[in-house]
């Protein structure tokens, strides 16, 4: 069966989750390993990144409009 997902693959999986699309192949690989809390922690980290990304988007939009 597929091997253990390394950190990058886990990170990409969480990003894919935010996007809402995932292949069953990756899913089998992801579910094969890792504790639930590891995924939750990664989820929180990605959430933090998402918030920072949107804040950056906002400040870029504001700077564009010279507000």
């Amino acid at each position, binding site marked *: 069966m597929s091997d253990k997902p390394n950190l990058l693959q886990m990170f990409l999986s969480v990003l894919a989750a935010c996007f809402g699309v995932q292949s069953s192949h990756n899913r089998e690989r992801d579910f094969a390993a890792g504790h639930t809390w590891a995924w939750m922690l990664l989820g929180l980290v990605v959430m933090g990144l998402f918030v920072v990304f949107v804040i950056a988007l906002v400040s870029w939009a504001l700077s564009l*409009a010279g507000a």
Partner: protein
Amino acid sequence: MKIIGWGLPALFGALGLIFPLSAAAEWQVNLGPGVTEISRAVYDLHMTIFWVCVAIGAVVFGVMLYSIVHHRKSRGAKAHNFHENTLVEIIWTVVPFVILVGMAVPATATLIKMYDQSEAELDIQVTGYQWKWRYQYLGEDIDFFSSLSTPREQISNDETKGEHYLLEVDNAMVIPAGKKVRLLLTANDVIHSWWVPDLAVKKDAIPGFINEAWTIAPEPGIYRGQCAELCGKDHGFMPIVVDVRSEEDFNQWLVEMKQAKAQASDAATKNWTLAELMAKGEEVYNRACAACHQPNGEGIPGAFPALKGSPMMVGDPAAHIDVVLNGKSGTAMQAFRDQLSAVELAAVITYERNAWGNTTGDLVSPAQINTLKQ
């Protein structure tokens, strides 16, 4: 069962059609474009996102309708067993994504325009009270209350309803056309929300805080709105009327308001006879006090005290005047000191002390009220 199987898509199609954009006033189905540049921009945003949703909906429901009709067991359809196609999923996620990012650009532009703090010619402090609005023209010394003027009989269906039922007030907020007006919103008791659809302005009025909104109404006219945040018993009965006039008419109105204010203050110096005060007092009582204490002065047991035969009416006038001027904290009795003029206060107190059988014969003069008011 065939007919019913068909019913769902056919019926839903029919429902989708009865969403025409412009219809007769009674059957208004859509947002109006409003009268200001901002409300026009908001209307365009609204229609754009609406058509985007209709387009995506048409595609999705079209495919669904097709498969409901064609892929039915009763027509011998065999179920295929594909159940995953990440590429298709990525496409139908990216397409709405891109459309939405596209939507974000005009939305941001409109929002930034709405937050423009350039210089305004006129500043009005709008204060939300439990169940009326107060407009104070800063720098013009004009300060009045604007409450619902739909007669009580129309609301309780004893009379036929007027054209602007529940959307008419006694003193409208008058502003000049084509000039930027800055509104400073706050509240006296609970959270209200000042909303005029035609101006596309909606801002919450929060007690203890001040919020800023602005509008430029190019065309003179009357624009009506309502309170848009639940604020208690009469939340639905505190409308907003904005009377936009040309600059000359507005300046004329300013002069008239100042004259009326001056007239009111010197009327206070005139000595009034008991009969004159009683007549004016009854008119003021029915307008401002009857809502709670009832026209017959008997109030509502357990809610609003009766004035008829009450010791305060016949006892020492000072206590009576204090309650009317300063209200009673912890109860619904408001301070009427700012809501009524000295003459109106003197008249209503005199009326309350001499009506419904309270025959004290006291005459409270406007001058007496003025000393306490200032």
